[in-house]
């Protein structure tokens, strides 16, 4: 049992947030929820396609906290519009702000994200901004009323891991808000590493959804996040330049 994570007025026992994109079939989603132990799940908002009968909400177990994202937004105003539409669905007031103007790396626009955070937090949303790990931007997001900051480990869907590790470490140490590492985590060991660094949670989608066996991978991430959190709470031992003997240094039979 992990120590609870309190955010947005609720208490979570899982520190693994998952997504609903890219699954080979959406009927896998409830099984992935069960295997991952996750309690928070992201969705996107789009125009209805009358040709498709797809209804993602029907695959999400009712105990989950829904975290709609503002994907597709290029400005703060567009993100605000999407967030308000998402809240009108009547499934809660959480929002992952995602404002992106870079189509190659999908890196977030921190300035627009800060503006959207300010507007939506004032309207009572639980605001989780996806961001580039920049200390001054993270502090502005806190001042704007964010419930957490969600810096990227590497570009969305890239499975490249924690390429921003030094900056994540600084954010975790300096920003008085939960840090949730979002995007880029490809392996359970990387999720564990983010948790060892002191991240409050991790959010990932691609790594599970595109695995050969998504259910087994969901379980692997569940265990990795749990292990990483326990290691953080236990306190990692010091790193030394040279050997420090674990056995007595006296000779044998001396």
């Amino acid at each position: 049992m992990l120590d609870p994570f309190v955010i947005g007025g609720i208490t979570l026992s899982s520190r693994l947030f998952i997504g609903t994109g890219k699954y080979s079939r959406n009927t896998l989603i409830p099984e992935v929820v069960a295997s991952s132990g996750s309690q928070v799940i992201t969705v996107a908002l789009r125009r209805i396609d009358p040709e498709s009968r797809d209804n993602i909400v029907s695959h999400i177990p009712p105990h989950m906290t829904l975290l709609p994202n503002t994907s597709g937004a290029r400005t703060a105003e567009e993100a605000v519009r999407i967030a308000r539409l998402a809240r009108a669905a009547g499934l809660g007031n959480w929002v992952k702000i995602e404002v992106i103007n870079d189509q190659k790396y999908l890196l977030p626009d921190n300035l627009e994200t800060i503006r959207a955070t300010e507007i939506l937090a004032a309207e009572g949303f639980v605001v989780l901004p996806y961001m580039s790990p920049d200390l001054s931007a993270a502090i502005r997001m806190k001042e704007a009323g964010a419930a957490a900051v969600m810096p990227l480990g590497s570009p969305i869907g890239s499975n490249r891991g924690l390429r921003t590790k030094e900056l994540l470490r600084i954010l975790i140490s300096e920003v008085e808000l939960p840090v949730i590492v979002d995007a880029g985590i490809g392996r359970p060991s990387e999720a564990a590493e983010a948790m060892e660094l002191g991240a409050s949670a991790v959010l990932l989608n691609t790594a599970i959804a595109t695995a050969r066996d998504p259910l087994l991978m969901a379980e692997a991430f569940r265990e990795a996040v749990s292990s990483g959190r326990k290691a953080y709470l236990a306190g990692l031992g010091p790193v030394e330049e040279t050997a420090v003997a674990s056995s007595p240094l006296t000779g044998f039979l001396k």
Partner: protein
Amino acid sequence: MNLIINGKALEIAEDCRTVADLLSRPEWSGRLVIVERNGEIVNREHYGETSFCEGDRLELVHFVGGG
């Protein structure tokens, strides 16, 4: 009556008078639909009493898979 639904001009039947009527049509039903009418969100509780005017612009959106 002619409406613009999700950016496309569509003619709707005379007996389709309210948002609730429209959402009961097979192409839109069976989902959790969020409606924006001329840029304003329509409260779900008001679907039954929200009627249309010629040329209204409607956005019908819903949740899809995403990360």
